[in-house]
């Protein structure tokens, strides 16, 4: 092509000082490839922000999600409230449903926008970019979590406030500090579980989408989203040990409604400890699972497979 510079004409040498391709001046290629702890942290923090950015900005650019993801779930929650009213249940159950309805926002965010997201990213061609960039996969997942938390928190808050006003839910907080701790531990373990599931989804094709479908209604039932966990009987013990949503909700309900302890499965302090253990276990497992599954996926050439 006339006018273009051939490879022969380009002399090897340092990029000009103002070049956008030079992140920092280094003495040699070896030095350039050496990462300090500070650089590692900075790059991964930027990764988190970079992955959270399109979620937050995307949701602000297209406000229709407010109607569908905030308004409509409120109606679903209301449906369960009306079931309890039709059965003339004590008013405390209405409060249980409202809190369960709010927590579905986080669960849906974890399974759709985090666990299954790597499957979508592979389809859209982003996954290969993530793996070739000098960043940690957990930073990408954390960025998804942070970005998704924005919409989920709005949705949960609207369900709590609007449904509480509509159905006259009266809260009687037993222990604020423990309530906040349990809530944060629930989120931490939920998103840890999301990261663990995301590693599995690296290997899967359309199974991923179908698995996410299976993680909705059956989990709502087993997690006691609309009923006290105790109703499940002995099954509740197993569920509370593996599903953060179940243990978290059970504790939150007991702490938000004084006198509801008889409907709780375990004391809130014990459930907080279970949640803390789950959070650590899920995050550590996710760390290893991501590395392991990535190796398998690379070996089997699945990281760039699409439309399967």
């Amino acid at each position, binding site marked *: 092509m006339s006018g273009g510079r051939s490879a022969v004409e380009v002399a090897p040498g340092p990029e000009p000082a103002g070049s956008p391709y030079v992140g920092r001046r280094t003495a040699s290629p070896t030095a350039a490839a050496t990462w300090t702890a500070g650089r590692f942290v900075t790059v991964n923090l930027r990764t988190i922000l970079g992955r959270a950015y399109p979620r937050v900005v995307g949701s602000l650019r297209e406000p229709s999600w407010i109607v*569908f993801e905030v308004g409509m779930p409120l109606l679903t929650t209301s449906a369960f409230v009306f079931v309890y009213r039709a059965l003339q249940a004590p008013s405390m159950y209405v409060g249980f449903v409202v809190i369960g309805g709010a927590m579905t926002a986080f669960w849906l965010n974890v399974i759709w926008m985090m666990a299954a997201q790597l499957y979508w990213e592979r389809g859209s061609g982003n996954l290969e970019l993530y793996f070739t960039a000098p960043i940690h996969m957990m930073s990408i997942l954390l960025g998804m979590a942070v970005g998704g938390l924005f919409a989920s928190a709005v949705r949960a808050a609207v369900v709590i406030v609007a449904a509480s006003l509509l159905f006259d839910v009266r809260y009687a907080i037993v222990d604020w500090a423990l309530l906040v701790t349990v809530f944060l531990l629930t989120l931490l373990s939920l998103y840890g579980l999301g990261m663990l599931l995301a590693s599995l989804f690296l290997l899967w094709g359309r199974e991923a989408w179908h698995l996410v479908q299976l993680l909705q209604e059956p989990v709502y039932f087993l997690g006691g989203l609309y009923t006290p966990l105790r109703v499940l009987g002995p099954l509740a013990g197993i569920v509370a040990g593996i599903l953060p949503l179940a243990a978290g909700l059970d504790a939150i309900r007991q702490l938000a409604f004084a006198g509801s302890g008889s409907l709780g499965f375990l004391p809130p302090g014990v459930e907080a400890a279970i949640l803390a253990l789950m959070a650590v276990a899920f995050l550590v497992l996710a760390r290893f699972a991501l590395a392991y599954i990535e190796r398998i996926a690379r070996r089997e050439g699945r990281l760039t497979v699409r439309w399967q």
Partner: protein
Amino acid sequence: MSPPATAAQVVPGSIGDPARATPRPLADTARALATGARLGWAIESNWSDPLLFAIYSIVKPVGAALILVAIVWAIAGGGQPGAIAFLVVGSAAWAYVGGGLLGLVGAILDDRERYRMLKYIAVSQAPFPAFLVGRSAAQLVIATAGFLVTLVMGVLFLGVRIDPFAVRWPLLVMSMAGGLVAIMAIGIAMAGFCLQLRQEAWSYPEALAGALYLVSGTIFPIDVLPGALQGVALALPTTWWLEGTRRALLGRPTAGRLAACDDATVVLALCATTAVLTLAGWAVFRFFERRARERGLIDQTTGS
């Protein structure tokens, strides 16, 4: 190179036959439906072995029914068989709404964002809505499996009494037919709307189904709703569809306001509301489809 075929040499029905370019609305619609259905079934079913696929098809609706049964157990301790029968039938039938809406919207988003072939459908001779309806048919088949299994589990394990010899089959067939047409009409309108939206519209059908769930008397009699919402419930075909289905299967009307209507009124109301909704759904889809074509949204991918 062989010389071009003259008109006399063209085999009727072959690719060179100019008659193939003549629109044949009925044949084109049937072919689009069949092609969409075949494609939809392949996409929905060939990701797994048949056993896992069967489990997947039934776990979701059964899980939904169990939530409601657990609610009754929590309050009444299983002492309300009438309430459980009401919930099981409503919950089982609702699988069609979730499946129908998700199938139609999913077809739009899947084919645009993932398989990137929506543009080819849009420029082909195939009627777009017919292809979408066909594409979602697989979801309706899965919903049918969930519906039947939930009813069977209700009969076997939860004390729901459905006698196959006492079922009012004509009423059941009319109710299901009307209900499915209404669900497709809502889904088509929603699919048109989702042509304008980005990938996150995946969750919208479920949200809409949740709203309809509240006002259609799915899991509680509409009498429990505030007055204004009762009016909305009576204007929706889904309310009449569920009422007709319950009467046909359980042999009795829902207690309260709907009990005053006889079966003929239920069918008539279902037909009338479905007709209005179908016309509205068609108009909404056409409006959004035209807008999407004008703005170049048919082939726009929006991964975020």
